[in-house]
């Protein structure tokens, strides 16, 4: 009895998360005001962090909150602040292009969903779901043994990206003039 009540609450929370994520994604795409887009993106990313919790990985959910919601959204807000003033209205979109893009993404959605529903997904041979296997300790072990090269290369990529961003944003005036 107790567990079934808990299950009902969990299901309810799951669908609330689904609604929040989809609403956030819609807000991120449709309004014309770019600031609403960023807030919708933050909402959708938080919802996806909730999905990671439902999938059983607390660490990845925290990383999602930290990196995406905490860092990338703030960076986008700064870029908005430094670029175009918000009160200048953009020219309206041509309706033909809008309908074509809606058609393209609808075709994509129907195709992917029908493939996902038609396939009979089979578990890999050694698949066992144990919550202990999803611990931070295992992720750390994998990062520093099997995936160490990728880990180092990604830190190099981040370093190069930071230097490149500083040069592109900071010195572009000096280089171009």
């Amino acid at each position, binding site marked *: 009895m107790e567990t079934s009540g808990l299950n009902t609450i969990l299901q309810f929370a799951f669908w609330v998360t689904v609604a929040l994520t989809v609403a956030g994604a819609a807000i991120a795409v449709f309004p014309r005001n770019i600031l609403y887009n960023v807030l919708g993106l933050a909402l959708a990313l938080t919802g996806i962090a909730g*999905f990671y919790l439902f999938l059983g990985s607390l660490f990845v959910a925290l*990383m999602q909150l930290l*990196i995406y919601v905490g860092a990338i959204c703030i960076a*986008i807000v700064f870029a908005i602040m430094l670029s175009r003033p918000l009160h200048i209205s*953009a020219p309206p979109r041509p309706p033909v292009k809008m309908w074509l893009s809606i058609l393209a993404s*609808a075709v994509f959605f129907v195709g992917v969903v029908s493939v996902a529903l038609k396939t009979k997904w089979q578990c890999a041979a050694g698949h066992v779901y144990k919550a202990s296997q999803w611990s931070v300790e295992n992720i750390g072990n994998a990062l520093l043994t099997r995936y160490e090269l990728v880990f180092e290369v990604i830190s190099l990529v981040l370093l190069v990206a930071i230097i490149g961003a500083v040069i592109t944003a900071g010195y572009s005036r000096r280089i171009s003039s």
Partner: protein
Amino acid sequence: MNSLSTYLIISALLFSLGLLGILQRRNLIGMLISVELLLNAANLNFMAYNRFLAPDPVVGQVITLFVMGLAAAEAAIGLSIILALYRKMHSINIEAAQKMKG
């Protein structure tokens, strides 16, 4: 707790919303936001497959972390390019950036 196809449908929905955003926005920052949505939909797929199908439970999470790192690099570079473009063109509409068209 929920089945694999629920997660697949959610991430397909997120991905097509992001695709719609990329195709119809002309504001560069709006397109960058849509790219973030696409990356997150792919991440959600990785995590769902990892939870329900994969033999090794670590692989999907590690790949998700790598994608997050690359997305951070991509956002930094993209935003700085947008800033440089705004200084040159005084607009972040992509249809204004046509200098190489000849």
